[in-house]
């Protein structure tokens, strides 16, 4: 092996002096002893520290002969294959492998350190004078600063400016789109479009405007008749004043009572003509007594009237029915065609399919089992029809005419069915027919009077008898409120675990005009206002709706029921009570 040893000496003033020496032999020895090929006069070098041996064509291996090893590219090793550019450290000496050339197999540059400096520095920097690529604190900090600003501010803003980019980012990398700005999950109902922030946030640096809400909720009813009560708080208010988003799946409507009490505490101060009562506070905090909606009849038409539950004298339902709850709920039972039965509330009252309200009572379904409309003692299966007074008389007439034709004596005290003296083929004379018709009609009237005035119809209905021009009876129209509190959000389903009698004093009610609903005090035994700790926390909107105007929508337009809506409404409205 021919090796060129180039010793580099730094003199003062930065002058570098090279000293070349040629070595030959294999191996080449390195050490502190005399006679070594490469003599390194440093105490930290062993007498014979290492060998360089050839290892195949143009390959050389450096092998340490002492346990302390050598430093090969800043790592302490026992042997290493030499490559051009490799740095070998032995003691204070640094050997660099230079490109071979000039007929030499190996060219080594040797730098000797000065004794003092290197001994001191060496333990702390075994790597010698390398200069690794450093990333300073400042660079790192600003890199972080820039990355966060770009990823979480610049990129989302770019996505807002260029909607196509925004949609793309949301689809592939939500964390660096405006999704990263989402402060909390949306209400359940808004989630289906929730990925598109701009469905609501349409203008930068402007709070969400009503038109974003009305894009979907155009037909949401307004609070009141805004022509009659054009209050700025209603006509200029923001949807977002009450509806707060990004607070989770269940949270959407402000629940604080002040929101309502601002106006309703002294409603006259904001709406002079309002017929509403002042509400000093929520339930348990001065809520006024409930007012039941009763149906009245005045000036030839039905009207509804709200009567406070504490005004007992006025609180009478003029339903034109006789129905003593007490009698029906007798614990001993009441007589029925099937014997004595004990009725309970559920015998007649069942929730409607939605469960909120109770389903209407139907004669056929709920009353008929006991209240048979029979009229002829010897024909107990025959009944008059229900629900149509003229039809009753017609039915009676037809019945008795038939009986007459069949030959029955219609006098009530006559023996049953003496045979006719006429021959079968003999046609009844006109006189006989008239006589039969008169008899049938008079019998129908006698029985009708009995039904209408004394039993059957009169058992339950108030009847108006008209004598002229001929005797007839009119059933007074049944006027029962569909719901005592039609606007309230009361839900029977949620109260079904409580016995009916806890709220409805039906077992003691002897008059059908009794309004059997409890007052606010009863509600307050379980319900309390916002923050109530020993009651069910109930806010204004637990029972009252805001969007209740029947006339105006939130966008100020008049609600026009289209044909389809009308049809839907008809279908959803329970059929009129059938008595």
């Amino acid at each position, binding site marked *: 092996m021919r090796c060129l040893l180039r010793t580099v000496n730094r003199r003062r003033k930065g002058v570098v002096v090279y000293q070349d020496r040629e070595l030959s032999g294999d191996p080449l020895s390195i050490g502190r002893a005399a006679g070594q090929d490469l003599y390194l006069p440093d105490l930290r070098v062993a007498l014979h520290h290492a060998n360089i041996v050839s290892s195949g064509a143009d390959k050389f291996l450096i092998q340490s002969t002492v*346990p302390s090893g050598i430093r090969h590219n800043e790592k302490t090793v026992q042997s290493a294959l030499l490559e051009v550019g490799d740095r070998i450290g032995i003691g204070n000496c640094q050997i660099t492998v230079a490109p071979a050339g000039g007929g030499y197999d190996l060219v080594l540059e040797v730098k000797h350190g000065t004794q003092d400096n290197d*001994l001191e520095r060496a333990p702390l920097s075994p790597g010698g004078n390398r200069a690794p690529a450093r990333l*300073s*604190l400042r660079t790192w900090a600003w890199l972080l600063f820039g990355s966060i600003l770009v990823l*979480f501010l610049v990129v989302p803003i770019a996505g807002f400016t260029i909607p196509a980019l925004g949609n793309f980012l949301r689809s592939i990398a939500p964390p660096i789109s405006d999704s990263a700005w989402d*402060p909390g999950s949306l209400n359940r109902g808004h989630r289906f479009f929730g990925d598109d922030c701009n469905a609501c946030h349409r203008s930068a640096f402007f709070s969400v405007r009503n038109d974003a809400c009305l894009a979907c909720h155009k037909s949401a009813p307004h609070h009141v008749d805004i022509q009659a009560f054009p209050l700025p708080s209603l006509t200029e208010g923001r949807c977002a004043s009450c509806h707060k988003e990004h607070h989770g799946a269940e949270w959407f409507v402000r*629940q604080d009572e002040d929101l309502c009490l601002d106006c309703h505490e002294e409603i006259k101060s904001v709406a002079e003509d309002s017929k509403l009562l002042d509400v000093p506070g929520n339930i348990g905090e001065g809520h006024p007594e409930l007012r039941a909606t009763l149906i009245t009849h005045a000036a030839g038409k039905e009207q509804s009237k709200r009567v406070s539950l504490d005004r007992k004298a006025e609180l009478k339902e003029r339903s034109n029915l006789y129905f003593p709850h007490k009698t029906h709920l007798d614990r001993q039972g009441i007589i029925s065609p099937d014997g004595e039965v004990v009725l309970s509330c559920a015998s007649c009252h069942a929730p409607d399919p939605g469960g909120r309200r109770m389903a209407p009572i139907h004669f056929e379904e709920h009353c008929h089992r006991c209240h048979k409309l029979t009229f002829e003692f010897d024909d107990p299966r025959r009944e008059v029809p229900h629900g149509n007074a003229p039809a009753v008389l017609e039915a009676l007439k037809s019945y008795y005419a038939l009986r007459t034709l069949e030959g029955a004596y219609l006098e009530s005290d006559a023996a049953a069915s003496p045979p006719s003296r006429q021959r079968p083929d003999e046609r009844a004379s006109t006189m006989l027919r008239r006589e039969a018709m008169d008899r049938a009609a008079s019998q129908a009237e006698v029985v009708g009077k009995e039904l209408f005035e004394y039993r059957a119809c009169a058992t339950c209905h108030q009847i108006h008898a008209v004598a002229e021009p001929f005797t007839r009876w009119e059933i007074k129209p049944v006027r029962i409120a569909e719901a005592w509190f039609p606007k309230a959000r009361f839900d029977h389903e949620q109260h079904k675990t409580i016995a009916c009698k806890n709220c409805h004093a039906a077992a003691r009610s002897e008059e059908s005009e009794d309004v059997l609903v409890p007052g606010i005090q009863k509600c307050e035994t379980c319900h309390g206002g916002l923050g109530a700790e020993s009651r069910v926390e109930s806010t204004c909107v637990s029972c009252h709706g805001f969007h209740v105007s029947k006339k105006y929508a939130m966008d100020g337009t008049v609600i026009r029921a289209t044909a389809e809506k009308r049809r839907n409404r008809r279908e959803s409205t329970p059929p009129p009570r059938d008595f």
Partner: protein
Amino acid sequence: MHVSFLAYRRFEYLKYSLALIGLSVITYALHDPSVPPNGGTWLGYTLGTVGAALIFWLLWFGVRKRQYHSHLGQLTGWLSAHVYLGFALLVIATLHCGFQFDWNVHTLSYVLMVLVIISGMYGVFTYAYYPARLTQNRADMGIRPMTMLREVADLDRRCLKIADQMGDKVHQMILRSIERTKLGASLWRNVLGGVGTILGDLTDELKSDVGRSQLPLRPLATPIMQQGGEMTVMYVANQFASAGADQVKELLDLINAKKALVTRVQDDLRYHTLMSVWRYFHVALSIALLAALIAHVVSVFFYW
């Protein structure tokens, strides 16, 4: 007389900080917002404004501490306020967000802030705990670490000289021991990849003392000297038979002295590292926090 920055003016800033925390907590407890507590209520905005102002002011400490000619309060006072009000920020920001956390830039800001505060609290701990140990460790060695390093180098030289006289085998053994004594080896760099080299820039004091050397990054490692040292001692002891007893005894004394010294140097470096390295996270994360805070505030009003 020296007063710790913690006790500056009889804990004046601790009192301010506690007052601020107390005020915030009481207001939060009494606050009855119409929506779930969050940054968007009046209290949320108020606490947010106070918190943001605090963050900017706390960041300003980095500028103030470099203004050597500033007369705007003593730097000790600034540091005292920085520490206590920084702690108050933790409470204020938590109340500001109303405990609403999610995967978004807002919580990112919060998390960064918490990390900055925790690293700062660790820093306070190191400043309170390690200086005393550092001084104790350097007892009778002078203050400059260079003195200790010179001492190590001197012991190495003396060991090698005696060993050389005792023969090549002993010399090789001692040499191995010396080569293996690497103060502040690059363990951390091995663990954390390139981070170790980055850390080098932080330690201004060490850099000026030991030149552009590598940062001592073996704060928790056992000094390597110990293991190799035992072997060396065993080997040298075996040389009693073949060498002069005086030389062996002297060599053993030197090795023991070096071992003790290296342990002290290692501790010194470890304490220094612990007292410096937290600042790396503290400062870098606080700059990151500044970015996240800007993104947080702008985004909130962008999609108001």
